[in-house]
């Protein structure tokens, strides 16, 4: 019980300052778990699951399941590819008519449609190439990842304020290509189980889409259990559905 109280306090200590500090930006949590099977020094596969929240940690945003394979033809070169099933809680969408002025001269908001948030599926495939270079105990790596995401058409409901009725609405299918470019620095501290790292990743969708800045640390036990904790800031440049956000990330990987 004592341990549980301490743990709750620790989570609160991590979450509360982040929410307060974020200001107008959103805050959320990313929790992941993965199992990695190495066949030899070159080939491995990984099964992973991830959960994300938004709305200052209060709303479930996404659950994903993924399977990927990696191959290292050279010590400094890694190729990997995989598939992810994304179960998204799509954020609400509100459209407006022209505002009007009431008798008191105040502007009145006139809603047009409200489509509440809804759960939907997306399918994603990716392939990436990672090149790394070691300088002493510091490893620099660059990863180029191509990502294709397909959202099937989905029928959901929306409220039509003009006609005061609920109606079906079709969310169209959509395919999105993204090129992700990540630069990462890993530091292997001698005689220390905690290895800090930092990365910056740029998302390009013909124009700059978003940039992620991450700072974290990995903690390994007997090379089989790897725990990670990190902070991530996501700056959005071109996406109507996402806003700038700060994330607290926790993950666990079991290697066998």
């Amino acid at each position, binding site marked *: 019980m004592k341990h549980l109280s301490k743990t709750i306090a620790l989570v609160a200590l991590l979450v509360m300052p982040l929410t307060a500090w974020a200001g107008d930006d959103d805050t959320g*949590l990313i929790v992941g778990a993965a199992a990695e099977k190495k066949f030899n020094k070159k080939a491995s596969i990984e099964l992973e699951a991830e959960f994300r929240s938004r709305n200052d940690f209060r709303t479930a945003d996404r659950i994903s399941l993924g399977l990927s394979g990696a191959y290292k033809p050279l010590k400094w070169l890694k190729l990997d590819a995989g598939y992810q099933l994304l179960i998204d809680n799509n954020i609400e969408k509100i459209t407006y008519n022209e505002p009007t002025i009431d008798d008191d001269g105040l502007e009145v908001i006139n809603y047009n449609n*409200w489509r509440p948030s809804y759960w939907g599926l997306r399918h994603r495939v990716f392939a990436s190439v990672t090149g790394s270079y070691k300088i002493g105990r510091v490893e620099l790596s660059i990863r180029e990842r191509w990502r294709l995401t397909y959202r099937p058409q989905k029928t959901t409901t929306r409220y039509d304020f003009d006609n005061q009725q609920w109606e079906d609405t079709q969310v169209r299918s959509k395919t999105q290509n993204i090129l992700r470019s990540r630069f990462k620095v890993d530091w292997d501290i001698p005689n220390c189980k905690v290895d800090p790292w930092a990365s910056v990743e740029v998302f390009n969708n013909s124009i700059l889409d978003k940039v992620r800045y991450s700072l974290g640390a990995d903690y390994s036990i007997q090379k089989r*259990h790897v725990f990670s904790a990190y902070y991530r800031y996501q700056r959005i440049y071109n996406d109507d559905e996402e806003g700038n956000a700060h994330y607290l990330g926790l993950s666990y990987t079991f290697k066998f």
Partner: protein
Amino acid sequence: MKKYLTIMLLALITTACVNDDTDFSDLINGGGQPEQPEEVITPIDIALDFTDLDEDDDIVPTDETDEAYNDYEENTEWSYTINVAYNGDEVTLTGNTARVRYTIEGAHVVIRSTSNRVHYVLSGQSDNGSFKVYSENKFKLTLNGLNLTNPNGAAINNQGSKSLYLVLADGTDNTLTDGTAYTDTDGEQMKGTLFSEGQVLVSGHGSLNINGNARHALVSDDYFRFRPGCKIYVKCTTGHGIKANDGIIIDGGVLNIEVSADGCKGIKCDSTMIVNGGRTTIIATGGVAITPATDIAPADTSSCAGIKCDYPLTINAGSLLLKATGEGGKGINNTGDININGGSVQIVTTGIKGLASPKAIKGEAKLIVNGGYLYSYSANSSPIDANGDITVAEGYTLWETKTQRVIISFQ
């Protein structure tokens, strides 16, 4: 390790339990259940209308810098006339035939021309004939009492990319019909009963009936301009009534269009469409067309519509009367903005709601009403659905919104 996993688990269960939707409970009654229409409204009757329209002739631009200058056949001196007279299985060419090369097979005529200022006058009747032109220059084509059927393809086929001035001789009735199966020529397109690679500029005070039995009826891979005085009746059982890649301008005339195939549109315009006058009536009776899924694409559905336009649709004057009766059939289905600045737009949809919703107006962008008269009725869905804003300018005399009907009037 246990402590870390406990942190992760607690982090999960202490967050993500709250919905972030805006609370509209004070504005929405019924707790999320669809409400029944408040009353059953009987819509206005929309039917094809072949009566004459009292309209002024348009003013032919005389300034060569006017971008419409070249759309008027009056601005070209047509020096060479070739008469093409059909008579059953035969056809006779007379006049300045030396200006062009031509072949005749039965009543099928193929013209190859490098000459400029050539005017073809087609007349007579044939159940097995056609008129096909390869021209490097614009040309004028007058229909002077022509009834032409090509069982194997387009009745009139312009393979040149320059302007086709289609003139309906005053007081004449003309009919073009295609067959139910086309014999295509390699490397050429033939999309309908009257097909033109170049723009088609329709004028004259005659009438033209076009029957589409295999593909579309009236097609330009460029644009159309319809001028006051022309009377056109399009009936297509297999495709769109009028289809244009680069735009449609209706300055006047009486257009009656009937389409009945699933997913087909009375007018399908892949660019901007402008209505400046005339009276256009469209009846679309088809249901939903379903495109099966393939290895690379999911299944898709397409409902019929009076007008489907992928760019801004602007109505400045004239009358648009649209009726769709099939499942999910729409009056106007527009990807670009819909601007109603004047004129009269009356739309009735009576189809059921199934794979698609039978809206009178469905806009992916804005609906902007600055003037004129808009009547929209949908028996089984909301009449207007604009994903962008609906903007109505100041000065309207009536703005009535009911479950099945929306009327906005500046008159």
